[in-house]
């Protein structure tokens, strides 16, 4: 049935659509850090927005709240993905490097994505919270204060955590 009489639903859809334009990149990068798989991350990000649409009735049409909802959902989807794949190395078949890779420098793109996998493997040695801090930090345009607000931590704690996380990441990568 159409959303008869429920005029606000259109507004929520619109807000989500607008958020997709501004936040798809962030969400996708967040997922990439979490899942070590660029393609999977893009799919998870897309799924995040679709879920937002399906839950539109329970989401308040407020920017901040919608943003928090999206990250939370992206996080859960990422964690679910990691659990499903266990310790399995998520090899990315070449055929999933679809037409995206034809756009520009296939080689460079493959290198980047390979790098994401290596980084992701190293990320698994971090705590979930540390990984989450880095995921926010490497998403697009977020400062320590923004991350702190989203995670309910102090900015100082975020700064400390990102420092130790990168330090550990570095060590892990070096030992390989």
């Amino acid at each position, binding site marked *: *049935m*159409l*959303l*008869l*009489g*429920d*005029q606000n*639903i*259109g*507004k929520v*859809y*619109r807000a*989500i*659509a607008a958020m*997709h*334009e501004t936040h*798809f*990149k962030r969400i*996708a*990068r967040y997922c*990439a*850090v979490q899942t070590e798989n*660029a*393609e999977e*991350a*893009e799919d998870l*990000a*897309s799924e995040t*927005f*679709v879920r937002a*649409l*399906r839950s539109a*009735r329970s989401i308040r049409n407020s920017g901040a709240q919608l943003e928090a909802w999206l990250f939370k959902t992206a996080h859960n989807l990422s964690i679910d993905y990691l659990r499903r794949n266990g310790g399995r190395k998520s090899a990315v078949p070449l055929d999933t490097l*679809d*037409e*995206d890779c034809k*756009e520009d420098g296939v080689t460079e*793109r493959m290198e*980047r*994505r390979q*790098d*994401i996998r290596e*980084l992701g493997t190293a990320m698994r040695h971090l705590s979930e919270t540390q990984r989450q801090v*880095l995921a926010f*930090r*490497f*998403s697009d*345009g977020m*400062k*320590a204060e923004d991350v702190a607000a989203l995670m309910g931590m102090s900015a*100082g704690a975020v*700064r*400390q955590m*990102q*420092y130790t996380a*990168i*330090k550990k*990441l*570095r060590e892990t*990568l070096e030992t390989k």
Partner: protein
Amino acid sequence: MSNNLDRIFDECLDRMLLHGESVESCLAQYASHAGHLEPLLRTVARAGKAYAAVPTDAAAARSRQRLESTIQELLQVPEQHKRRERMGPPLPRFGLRAPGWATAAVALLLAVVLGLSGTVAASGNSLPGQALYPVKHTTEEVRLALEFSQEGKASLYLAYAERRAHELDALLKSGEMSQVEAVEVQLRRNVLAAAKAATALTDAEAASEVRSRLEGAVSSMLLRLEPALREAPEEERPRIDSVLQAIGGAYSDALETLSGLADAQHRAPGTGVLEVQTRAFSLPRVEKALVTATAIEAYVAAGEASRWVSLASGPQSFDLLRLAGGPHPLGRRSVDAGIYTRVRFAITNMIVVVDGTEHVVEVPEQPLTLSWPFRVERGALSVVSLDFNGAASLETSGPGRYILSPVVHLSVSEPVPESVAGAGEDQPEIRLKLVPPGQNTAGSVAMPSAHKEGTERDIAEGTEDKDPATVHPVATGPGWAAETRSTPDVPGPHGPAKALDEAGPGASPEIPQPAARQPEQGPPAWSASGERPGLQDTNGGTAQGTHPGPSAEAVPPQGQQPGPTAVAGPDGPGKMAQGRAEERAASAAPAAERGEHGAVVAGAAGSDVWAAGTFPAPATTAPSTSSKQPPPGPVGPVEKPGEAASAAGQPVVPPQAAKSAASKDDPLRGNPH
């Protein structure tokens, strides 16, 4: 130390991830920590580079597409059951949800019968108040949700504005008035949203396209709705007119905004001629009205080159009464071709002679600004005409004390090649709308126009108080109307203004009626002219609307505060079609409806809105009022520039002659049809 390092590291992260700085530049900044920082920052750089490759544009596009199809799917999937699961039985919820539920239930039923796509399709022709209308509205909302480009949004908003215009048309034709204002609010919202979306366009051509569509939409809409206005029951006309004028104001706002934006696309090289002229200023009992106008300027909207352009080299002094019958050029200049949005001038001095005695008139301190977009084309003449409503513009607050609060009707001619313009024949005049003055009181120079304030406020509030009942004005008391003088009948067509003047109770040709005007007591017709010749005034007299000659001229009542007011209204010489006066009155009424003015009349009987003395409003509110007055009526031919000279050159005439002249000028204010 550790804390300090955290901060330094954090700062380096910001520099690298947010500002794209290199590892080296960060290390240079914190050379003392370089050894410690470098391996960490190299890791950050590597990770930053890797993650920056996510997502690809193709992935974003795919996701967008998926989002769109999901929304479509959500709209197609019967959610009835889902809703029950989530929220329990729908019935008790009805009352808690949108008011539209009652009718929505019917739509729901129909949807089951027709199938969903049928419902959506069927809703396309639904009107406000009908069962399927909420479906239509929601469908539009969703379509907007799916539209990601500003250009697409602007296009949708324009299309929806057109739909609203169609709905208005249908509502008016069916006499279903209850939803008219709701549709008007939506229409204005759509128009302004289209303009807003267009402002976000980086593509000048696309913005220009939006502007062109808006320009076309406003004329086609008025052409379509005007017949509805004419055919509407008299008692509804003020209300309809108010709606039309509000809409006109929104289009005006939108065009103003975009004319500057899209400037690069339409600024035609070269120059054209812009002339501002004034006509008609009939005043009861006044023998002379010497006016000095200065700073006659037009505002050209040309992006960064927007500016006021002077149209006259110095103060212009003239006797307004002697202009009757012909236009008097206030200013005429060769100007850059382009879009102009406003005209302003200041009246610095005014003296009236009443009963042989000179009186200095208090004039507005601020310039009078009239806003309406018009074009000046290369090698062509554009004429802006300002018609003062004499009776409404001049008020008195006591013996010998006169106050000028200009009530001006603005009309603009379509540009005509100058050679043709010289002939002064058959110049098409675009119907123009109006005029807001407004700001005159505020002296605002910039974009803001009175109607803008109105529309934005209205929209912000969601709805407007359009209940005509709230608008009915009440004359505040006898003004110098009490001293109404009569004028002889003058053969020939009359302008609506005169006819309106006659409408005042007690007015009667040749018979001065000292009785104070009390329009609110008049019969329930709002114009005595034209079609309602036999209206009885409260004094038992008959309004002289059908008579060619003006009778007593109404004047504003005392105690009214001066406020420059522009009045939009149909304009045109020649035939003063019956009923025009009514439209005119209607055009004045909306102001009242907006509650911005003091008095008014809407619906009040048989009296001239202006002459009735109800119109003058406090200076602060007057502007808004007028801004709402787009002339719904078609406009008459352009006045011939050539007439100006002769008109201006008219010898001073005795009061009686002046009256005749004034009455003759009325036709100029009439509408051709």
